[in-house]
């Protein structure tokens, strides 16, 4: 309920923030943990400041899509759980959850992060399908970055379950030590513009006081795989350039955090 919109705007102009951070500083602690759900094929919990998000990977064998008979598939879903904020209600995903899911999805899918062909078991008949579910535990701002971190970490930690060679049935209770065929490691960073200044890792109050934002997903080569602009105000081309630079730099910073828990 608390809004400090005007003060945030005034401080931003001076390069300052309410919590004393620099414009380009992430909150502390940043903590990543894998294996937080034994029932998932891969799982991760990400904490940035007070924001906590979890991601779980589930794998299943399905018939491939008609137009890609030799490939598996991937889908990313997000739920803003009412337990994570007084702002969320029970019910089907609202537009905020949908945007979060689709932006995170594009970042990973368009980066061709997973080798879809290696997910194929029998062309035209059976392939692995990967579903990542992201859920919020405490929303204190910057879900875009936290979700992207959680999804990537869970993907890296995931292992295929055993498949009975005769019946083809999946035994979810037994995992192999084979991980997913990952080609790239894309991460999304969202840069916010408040009163002409650019900053990262907004708190909830800063998220209610911004003019525009740009989410940029990039991989370890600096190749951009997805973008999403949000907010009511426009951005100049120059600003976009600056925001992309910041996003690429911060993605590397965050990638190092992922390396700490899963190679």
């Amino acid at each position, binding site marked *: *309920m*608390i*809004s400090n919109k*005007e*003060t945030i705007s005034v401080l931003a102009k*001076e390069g300052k923030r309410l919590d004393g951070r620099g414009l380009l500083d992430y909150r502390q602690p940043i903590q990543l943990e894998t294996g937080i759900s034994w029932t998932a094929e891969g799982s991760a919990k990400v904490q940035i400041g007070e924001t906590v998000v979890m991601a779980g990977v589930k794998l299943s064998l399905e018939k491939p899509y008609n137009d890609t008979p030799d490939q598996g598939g991937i889908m990313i879903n997000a739920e803003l759980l009412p337990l994570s904020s007084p702002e969320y209600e029970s019910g089907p995903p609202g537009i905020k959850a949908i945007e979060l899911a689709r932006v995170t999805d594009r970042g990973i899918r368009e980066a061709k992060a997973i080798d879809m062909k290696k997910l194929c078991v029998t062309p035209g008949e059976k392939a692995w399908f990967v579903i990542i579910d992201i859920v919020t535990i405490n929303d204190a701002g910057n879900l875009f970055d936290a979700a992207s971190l959680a999804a990537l970490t869970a993907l890296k930690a995931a292992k295929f379950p055993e498949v009975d060679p005769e019946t083809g049935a999946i035994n979810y209770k037994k995992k192999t030590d084979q991980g997913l065929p990952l080609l790239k490691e894309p991460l999304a960073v969202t840069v916010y513009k408040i009163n002409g200044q650019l900053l990262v890792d907004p708190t909830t109050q800063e998220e209610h006081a911004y003019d525009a934002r740009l989410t940029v997903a990039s991989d370890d080569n600096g190749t951009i795989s997805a973008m999403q602009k949000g907010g009511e105000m426009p951005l100049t081309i120059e600003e976009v350039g600056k925001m992309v630079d910041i996003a690429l730099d911060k993605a590397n910073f965050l990638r190092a955090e992922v390396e700490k828990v899963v190679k």
Partner: protein
Amino acid sequence: MSNILKNDREVVIPGECLAEGMDYLPGDNTYREGEKIYSKILGLVGVAGRVMKITPLSGPYLPKTGDKIIAQVFDITMSGWRFKTNTAYSAMMNVKDASSRFIKRDEDLSKILAIGDYAVVTITKVTSQNLIDLTMKEPGLHQVSGGRLVKINSQKVPRIIGKQGSMISLIKDKTGCNITVGQNGIVWIKGDSDKELLAEKAVKMIEARSHEEGLTGKMEKFLSGGASQ
């Protein structure tokens, strides 16, 4: 044969037995069943003579007449403003209670307080259904502008203010900030932005450590740049 089972300032959870025997009386946040007195909430035991009471360590704010609170306008009607109060209940302020100057009939009320504005106001009435009436006419009551608002648990307000205002004065002295504490758990801090942040940290620290002894001394140390945490 009566017995107290808990010490003063001990932390208890709902349902814990505080005393047995009819010599003792159930005070705030307790209840009696048979000969025993039990706690109804998570809080600190307080023994005052024969009365056993519990001081809450968390919990909702109960609006009371005479309380000064900080509230936010969410609607403007023909007769005044409607406020969110950080409780389950909204509040109303009539045009005639907004200011000591005369407000003309066709005056644009949003020029006085617009939707989204916060104000320091006093509760003049609370109905049985917890509907709240407010006034902004008394001295010291006015719109919030500048500075920052911080939300804390309303049960910690007495600790933030301290005995005879000792704690709040300490924070004000050490940070040079103006600080208004709403009984509903909203605190308004205004000063240099660095000093505002220090005051905010102090307020949050008191909130987290309100159950500790010697807190004023610890806060003095913290505010003087001494030991943190």
